[in-house]
């Protein structure tokens, strides 16, 4: 799927937030503690993504990221994953009646991977398919 650099895809929203289900897609390197960690070897990079179950306990999540620590200090999200992956905050919005729901799964990648060709040709189309299948109304994107 080749997208024009000039035209910006833009999907209007016709629902209020309190009727929308939101999915998180993040390049912050978040994953379940028992999922395979991202490959932080810069020579290899990592073009994979992880599926995070929607009912995950935020305490079961951690972060692996190849970026230098002075650029992205992963100590913060390891202490509280909501620093970069606001799953508990989304649930609180739902509890408050301000959001319709939280998606049944979320998707994560590790930025700083340098395998851009593989990511653009393979990873992103596969990831987009997962988003479309999920029936989420909208996606919140976060990085580190």
């Amino acid at each position: 799927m080749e997208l024009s650099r000039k035209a910006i895809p833009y999907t209007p929203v016709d629902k209020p937030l309190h009727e929308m289900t939101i999915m998180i897609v993040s390049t912050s390197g978040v994953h379940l503690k028992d999922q395979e960690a991202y490959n932080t070897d810069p020579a290899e990079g990592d073009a994979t993504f992880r599926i995070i179950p929607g009912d995950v306990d935020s305490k079961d999540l951690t972060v692996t990221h190849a970026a230098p620590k002075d650029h992205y200090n992963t100590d913060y999200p390891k202490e509280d994953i909501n620093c970069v992956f606001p799953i508990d905050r989304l649930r609180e919005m739902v509890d408050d009646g301000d959001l319709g729901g939280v998606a049944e799964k979320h998707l994560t990648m590790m930025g700083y991977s340098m395998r851009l060709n593989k990511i653009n040709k393979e990873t992103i189309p596969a990831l987009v398919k997962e988003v479309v299948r999920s029936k989420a109304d909208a996606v919140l994107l976060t990085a580190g």
Partner: protein
Amino acid sequence: MQRGIEAQGIPTSLITLDVEQSSLMRPPRAIHPVGFEFGHSLGKPNDKNTQMKVLYAALAELVERQEPGNIHESHFPTY
């Protein structure tokens, strides 16, 4: 990635600290929490108040009519 998702008819909103990189991609909807450091783009650990404000600001982008391609600077004094 954002453009790929949006091209499938699913609206997106981005929280970015890397304004330079993100600007090149001309995101459909985005906020930049000004002054935040990498590692806590929604707010510091356990600062639920700021995290919630950033989340609300990002999701508000979805339902406000946008001129796509801009990154809106947002200020959060509680950070």
